[in-house]
Structure formats: structure tokens, C-alpha cells
């Protein structure tokens, strides 16, 4: 009888240890926090060129993460990229004339969306569109423009 009791105690300890390990990893080593408060609102923004933006990229305002990119689609008529942004519910006072621009963190870092607030007193809400956008800077195009200007005749 005593032996089965020991076995039961060890088994119980093993099961609890296993679940604690899974819980610790899920909470302290993943981004589960960003799934928790999914009750936000969705806005869209159209860009001419999104560069290397990926779904799940951060949406920031003054450097603070306020949401994520949930999907990226191509508009078949205007051939511009339609980016859907999921903004956290407690950032519900973003002016509706704000500017969304695609930025890069560091020289080689990944791309994210930065929102610069406008001055309007109306706020973005579920389903609204960000009017003013600034596309990603594509390094090759910049270099190309630089060289074509530098070598063009009469461009002193």
C-alpha cells in the first residue's frame, strides 16, 4: 500500500511539473500576451509599396506597440497593397487623420508600421481607413535614383 502511495505522489508531481513547464514556456518565452487582448478594432491602410512588411509585424505609435498587422492583400484594381491592422482596444483615441508609414528597425531589422498622430478630433474606429500613408523605402530604388541623378547631364 505504501509503495502505491509513493508511486501516486511521484506521478502527480510529474504531471504538475509537466504542466508548469508548459505554462512557464508559453507565458515567459512566447508572445502570448499579444494574443490575450485581441478585443481591439481593425483598420485598413493602402500603401503603394510595402517593401518587406510581413503579417504579425508590429504597429507602433511613438515607439510603443499598439497593435499588429493581421493581413496584407493586393487590391486587384488599384494594384496597391491593402494592409489590415489590429489595434488594441485601449488605444481607441487615435485621430483619423493620422499618417501610417512603413519603417525599418535598425539597418537590417524587420519592418513595422509607425503611426504619426494627426490633429483631428475624430478617432479611428472599427473598419475605418487610414488616409495618409507613406510607403516603404526600397533601398535599391533610392540608390538607383541617386546614381541616375548624379550621372544625368547638366545636373550640377
Amino acid at each position: 500500500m505504501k509503495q502505491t502511495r509513493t508511486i501516486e505522489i511521484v506521478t502527480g508531481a510529474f504531471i504538475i511539473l509537466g504542466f508548469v513547464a508548459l505554462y512557464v514556456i508559453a507565458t515567459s518565452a512566447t508572445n502570448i500576451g499579444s494574443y490575450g487582448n485581441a478585443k481591439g478594432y481593425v483598420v485598413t491602410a493602402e500603401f503603394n509599396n510595402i517593401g518587406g512588411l510581413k503579417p504579425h509585424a508590429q504597429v507602433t505609435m511613438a515607439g510603443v506597440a499598439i497593435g499588429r498587422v493581421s493581413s496584407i492583400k493586393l487590391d486587384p484594381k488599384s494594384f496597391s497593397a491593402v494592409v489590415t491592422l489590429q489595434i488594441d482596444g485601449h488605444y481607441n483615441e487615435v485621430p483619423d487623420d493620422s499618417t501610417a508609414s512603413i519603417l525599418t528597425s535598425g539597418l537590417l531589422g524587420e519592418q513595422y508600421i509607425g503611426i504619426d498622430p494627426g490633429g483631428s478630433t475624430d478617432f479611428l474606429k472599427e473598419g475605418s481607413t487610414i488616409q495618409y500613408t507613406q510607403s516603404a523605402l526600397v533601398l535599391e530604388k533610392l540608390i538607383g535614383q541617386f546614381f541616375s541623378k548624379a550621372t544625368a547631364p547638366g545636373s550640377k
Partner: protein
Amino acid sequence: MKFLREPYYILLDFLEMLGASGLFLLHLLRYTPHALRRPGLIFQQVFTIGAMSLVLIMVSGLFVGMVLGLQGFNTLNKFASTSMVGTLVALGLLRELGPVITALLFAGRAGTALTSEIGLMRATEQLAGMEMMAVDPVRRIVVPRFLGGVISMPLLVGIFNAVGLLGGYLVGVVLMHIDKGSFWSQIHAHVDFKEDFRSGIIKSLVFGAVATLIAVFEGYYAQPTAEGVSRATTRTVVNTALAVLAVDYLLTAFMY
């Protein structure tokens, strides 16, 4: 001499084994509801399969995490981005090394024990004795072991990953003086809950089912001799290793 026979027969043998284990799995699943009504038998197996593997899993996890940390540090140092060591260790463990190495260790530690136990029951005619008493040995012996293995595996993988992460932390932060904050913040930024954590758990469940199924299958159909049981035990380790690595490729291709 199996390997001297024509490839045709080898293929047939392989298909036969695959089909037989598939049918055996169906057989096991049919009796699963019966077995769930006697959880005591299952938890006894969780003890012998899971809890007894704990020390092996924890020590291996610690060293795998430390090696990952050290290798990652040496390579990332060349790009001056050593703060990514945490991400490398966490992603490597959660996505691949945790489930795969745990499954391989599991085959060696628990799979062989299951095969030789059931094989010896067959060889000493204990299974036949049960049938004489109208007790189905599949229901009484095999299904609880199978379920015990499937339950234990994700828990073992979780422990392996947690201890591995601790190993990476020891090497990265304590030994190599990477900043503690950037170590964790890089992990937070790049390890996705759905894509990395959840798919690792799915992998561990599938590997648990595969490894335990092969172990009980080989034991149940072992030739009832001393030599037959020893060959079945060898086959368990070899087949589990091959099956786990092949299934790992398939799951990785589907999920990422």
C-alpha cells in the same frame, strides 16, 4: 538473409508492417473509451513511462540547451548580435529539438521497456493466460500503456524545453554575460505562441503516439522466444528513430 531477397519482398514486408501497425492502432483506439473508465491503470503507466524518464529528460535538456547557447553565441558573436542567442535556443528547442530528441530518448528509455515487458508477457504465455480468463490483453495491458505514453510525451517535451531554455540562459547570461533583459526581450519578440509553441505541442503529441504505438506493437507481435524479444526491442528503437524523423519532416512541411 533478408537483404539478399528481392527488393520486391522487402517492399511487401514494409507495407505489411505499416498496415499491421495501422490496424493495431485502430484496435487500440476502439478500446480507448473502455480504458478511460479505469484511469488508475493509465496513471500507473504515466509513472513508469513518464515520471521514471524525468531525470534523463532533464539532464539531456540542460545539456542540449547549453550546447545550443554556446554554439549560437560563438556564431552570432561574428555578427555582433549575441542578444539573439535566447531566440536561437528557444526557437530551436520549441520547434525541433525538444520534440525530436525527447522522442528519441523516449524510445530508448520507455519504448524498449514497453516492448520487452509485453514481449516477455507473450513469451511466458501470460497474455494467453489472460485470454483464457476472458480478459482481453489488448484492453487490459496494451491500451493503458499506449495512453500513458501519449499523455507523458507532451509533458516530457515541456520539461525538456523549460530545462533547455534554462541551460541556454546559464551559458548566455551567466557565463557569457549577455544582457539579461535583451536575452528575454528577443525571445518575446521572435517566438510566436501559435506558430512555434503550439506546433511544437502538436509534434510532441504525434511523436508520443508514434513512439508508443511502435513499442507496444513490436512487443505484442514479438516472437515468443528470448531471441525474438531481443530482436523486437532492437526494432523498436530503430523503427521509432526512423518513423519520428520522417514524421517530423512531414509535420514541419505542413505546419510552417
